[in-house]
């Protein structure tokens, strides 16, 4: 089977969940079409609620549905899901322990032509600050589908960072995934490249190829769950390679890189290099331009990896 568009895989997961379990409900805030969930509405019109352009209302409504026994998924663009409805997600959902699954789409530079106002470089940071919240960002359609299904039954709230446009499979059909258990895509002994999400995991794999060309043996790990961090695997590769890179479509400060850095600095201080946004706002442009502008590409990972290794053992 060929790769499906990410949002189609997302919707498929929701529909399959809903077919099995009538507690599954879906909320959108006037971005149903954009988020690809029209098929859910058509199939389960009574279990679909469009809140209009009212993200805060949507998230607290989802909390109410959860408190009364439903299993809601609620979505908007990541910038609005995280920033606009943060207090509602914090209080009505997380603090109240209401089991809501929030989805933020078009994370980071993938907001492309919508520009700076729509570019969430901080949603992981906001979400990391919520005690116990599960945060995940799958890199392909196969892992996305599997992880959404697992998230539905995780006992607490979850936040899905969903790259919605694009079709690529990194994994074979039937591969198994667990929230909190990262995937080793490529083993290596010289450096470990941890990457998150649809844009950066493939770039990390490309960078590993470039490094191999120079005799550098790089491991690549798909860190699909950002919180809880797969500490065991991170520790293992830090020990094995002594050099860790983290790549994300997000601010380095408060993002995945800082989560890994904090963990390692307390447990096994390791030389690190982070690829991500450095204290800047987003801006408009196409994906190729934005990847280059913010240095979120294989070339930069490759160069930064070499730099890191040059310093190694000094």
């Amino acid at each position: 089977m060929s790769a499906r568009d990410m949002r189609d895989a997302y919707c498929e997961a929701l529909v399959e969940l809903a077919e099995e379990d009538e507690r599954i409900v879906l909320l959108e805030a006037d971005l149903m079409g954009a988020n690809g969930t029209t098929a859910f509405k058509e199939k389960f019109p009574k279990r679909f609620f469009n809140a209009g352009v009212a993200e805060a209302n949507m998230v607290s409504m989802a909390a109410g549905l959860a408190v009364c026994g439903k299993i809601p998924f609620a979505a908007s663009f990541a910038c609005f899901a995280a920033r606009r409805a943060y207090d509602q997600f914090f209080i009505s959902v997380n603090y109240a322990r209401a089991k809501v699954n929030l989805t933020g789409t078009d994370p980071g530079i993938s907001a492309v032509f919508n520009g700076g106002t729509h570019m969430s470089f901080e949603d992981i940071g906001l979400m990391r600050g919520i005690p116990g919240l599960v945060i995940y960002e799958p890199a392909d359609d196969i892992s996305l589908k599997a992880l959404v299904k697992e998230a539905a039954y995780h006992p607490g709230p979850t936040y899905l960072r969903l790259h919605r446009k694009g079709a690529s499979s990194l994994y074979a059909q039937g591969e198994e995934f667990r929230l909190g258990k990262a995937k080793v895509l490529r083993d290596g002994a010289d450096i470990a490249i941890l990457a998150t999400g649809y844009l950066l995991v493939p770039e990390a794999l490309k960078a590993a190829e470039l490094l191999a060309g120079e005799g550098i043996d790089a491991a690549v790990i798909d860190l699909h769950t950002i919180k809880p961090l797969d500490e065991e695997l991170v520790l293992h590769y830090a020990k094995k390679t002594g050099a860790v890179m983290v790549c994300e479509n997000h601010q380095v400060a408060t993002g995945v890189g800082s989560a890994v850095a904090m963990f390692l600095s307390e447990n096994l201080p390791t030389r690190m290099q982070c690829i991500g946004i450095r204290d800047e706002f987003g801006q408009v442009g196409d994906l190729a331009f934005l990847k280059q502008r913010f240095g979120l590409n294989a070339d930069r990972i490759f160069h930064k990896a070499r730099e890191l290794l040059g310093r190694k053992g000094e």
Partner: protein
Amino acid sequence: MEAERLKRLEAAARQVRYDIVEAIGNIGIGHFGGALSIVEVLTVLYFSQMNASPANAKDPGRDKLVLSKGHAGPALYAVLAQKGYFPRETLFTLNQGGTSLPSHCDRNLTPGIDMTTGSLGQGLSVAIGMALADRMDGRKNRIFAIIGDGESDEGQVWEAAMAASQYGLSNLIAFTDYNKMNIDGLTSEIMNLDDLGAKWRAFNWNVLRTDGHDLEAIDRAIDAARLESDRPTMIILDTIKGKGCSIAEGKLSSHNMAISKEQKEKALGELSAAMGELS
């Protein structure tokens, strides 16, 4: 309105419409629908009503506009280019990397843009702050704001509605682009606004309603709003999403629409034929 003046406004509006289609058509995708529905109100504001031009762009006493439905930026850019804030060619850099014209309005990038918008629901509150500041400093200017009907789902719009009347902001004139459409469906189906005028009246606003594609009627409504001495005014504009462009007009799909080269040429052909008729 004298015939000559109306003719000038009509010509300006047609050029704006043409430029929107050409600029968005150039990059191949964009917010056609919501840009085309506000062509007339923007034309009346900048070519008849507002004291705003490149010459007074830095003057705090100028009239200011918050285009709260910031995704309609390309419509305002077309107007600003025609007013001479920047060359017309700049329109064709829309949304390209490094441009000064991003899809959503940005006061730090674009000459003539008074406020940054794009996260719906915030603009009317910002306009209130501007109206308060200008009133505090004794300025006699007006603050204008344009919100969407879908945008009116946001609770913040109604927080602003209360605040503006609480502070008696007669220097604030707002518009609702009532094109009856959100993205996912008709406004009546997604989140029904029911009697929108009654809602604003209940918040103690002066409320007017007019055909949002009738230049003269919009101009008259703004003249009337200027007479109000102690309340803000909401002018509800009955509009059509995608107005004036056959591939977009009245279509839900026009919100953020991809357009091929052929569609663009066809649309521009229609619009230039219309411009020819006028001259």
